[in-house]
């Protein structure tokens, strides 16, 4: 989780990813942020998040994205 938070903060340092739970619903992340996060996460965790996984429930919080990563690694 620490590594993921570091990646996300590196892309948008103005957002507190430990607290935000409506990153997509409140439009805090734009489409460029999302593809940047996906690209870094894929590379760092050795997984392949693809366009079908781009659901709000997977990206609304760092925790939700972390769960997706764990699911893909599993």
């Amino acid at each position, binding site marked *: 989780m620490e590594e993921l938070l570091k990646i996300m903060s590196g892309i948008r340092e103005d957002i507190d990813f430990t607290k935000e739970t409506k990153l997509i619903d409140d439009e805090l992340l734009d489409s460029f942020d999302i*593809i940047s996060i996906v690209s870094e996460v894929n590379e760092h965790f050795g997984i392949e998040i693809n366009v079908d996984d781009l659901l709000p429930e997977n990206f609304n919080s760092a925790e939700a994205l972390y769960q997706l990563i764990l699911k893909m690694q599993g």
Partner: protein
Amino acid sequence: MSLVSLHSLCFAAITVLLFFLFPKKHRWLVLLAANVYFYLSYGAKYIVFIVICGLVSYLAALWLEKRIAAGAQRLKEAESKEEKDELRRKGLKQKKRICALAVILLLAPWIVIKYGNFILENTGKLLSVFRIDAKLPGLGLVLVLPLGMSFYVFHAVGYVVDVYRSKYPAEKNFLKYFTFLSFFPHITEGPFSRYNELKQEIFEEEHSFSYERLCAGCARILWGAYKKVAIADLLTESVNSTLAAYSDHGFVLISFAVILYSFRIYADFSGYMDMMCGFCHILGIRLSENFRQPFLAKTVDEYWRRWHITLGKWFRDYVFYPVSMSKTGTKLSKWARKKWGARTGKLIAGHLALFFVWTCTGLWHGANWTYLFWGYLNFIVILSTTQLEEVYARMRDKLHIRGESFGWKAFCVLRTFALISIFRFFSLSPDIRTALDTIVHALTHPRLWESSLVLNFFTNIGEKNVLLTDVGIAALIIVDILCEKQKWEDVKKKCPPIVRAMLYAAMLLILIICAPGKDVSASFIYANF
């Protein structure tokens, strides 16, 4: 059927009445009947296209769902990891094939009708460069785009792709799906709705009658009709004639006409949305909003997140993400990261996808190079905004300008409005040459003395109507500013009922005076796209 007419008023009233008289479970059937009546009122022959589009997308979604279920079952039964991976790979390939076939079948007729001549004409020109005199069949054939085809085809494509992505299950009842696809409030100008969202609104909500919703819905319809009739329609002739005869005018009048054109298209498009959202509100159906005070955007990028919002979201979900996250996009991103560093590497796939988005957005608006050029202008400005963000920030610091100051924000808003207005020269002109000529002519002929002729501009509108248009535009700006500051609801609540009633009565009176004799049905601008 004209939307601002007695006919449409009766149509809406009867639909509302029947909707609430029907048993709750079957109210959607009233909407289906209304959709069919609405579509047929524009001409019976084109209904065949929407029915075929509906059948293709409906069957493709069911086929996809069947494949997904069968794949999941086989996956459950598989024992080894290798076997599971192989099944996943095969399943995905099958799904992709079905989805691609459906998307091609859906888009093909639309592309032929909308872009056939454009493609043939330009293929001919390209071949003539190589001195090949090709006689292309079908060139010059006038194909009329069926009403709303650019909208319902995109709705159908979105639905099939969503089922392919397992975002929601396919609809089993064709009539329910067709009610969504042909839903008259969104078929001619949008908004682009998602099936899972509208399904909830149309088929699953309680839809109890509410007097408050009736009043609020009627007020919004009235405001929308006022924008259409008292702003958009009254400005049409003056704006068009001034821009058509641009060589007779200078910078002042041409700029004035383009600024008013911006207000005209906004009043026209948002007026339509207000009417449709208002109507749906009466029924208890929430339609996606398509505007969020676009003229208060501080950058072109932000403008496009506030103008025709649902089209932007459609392109984001079905073009931007698939392109930027494709294998080519990922490879390009990795290569650029090595070559130019992490920041550029990160952005390059996004920019490639953005290029595709603006190509599609330009072409979606019309089969003409002007629209494509207009799309690329937007792309270049958005690209430069993101790429030069740090440079702009440094420049601001050097000039001691505070980014949060009112003056800077006002400058950004005006700059964005100016850029968007300049881009409009291209979407307005018959060809790129004319657009460039108009801009060059305006810049080289300031004719500042024409400022006094601005008043003459309004004589085309008619002296009595000048006040209506002025008041309308002022009201439009004030309402947008109040909405932006989130004070509009408070203002409405605090407004004494008598004042509100007088305002509505005045708007209604203006509509009655202005609407008869005018062919308002002719041109809701976006219905032509």
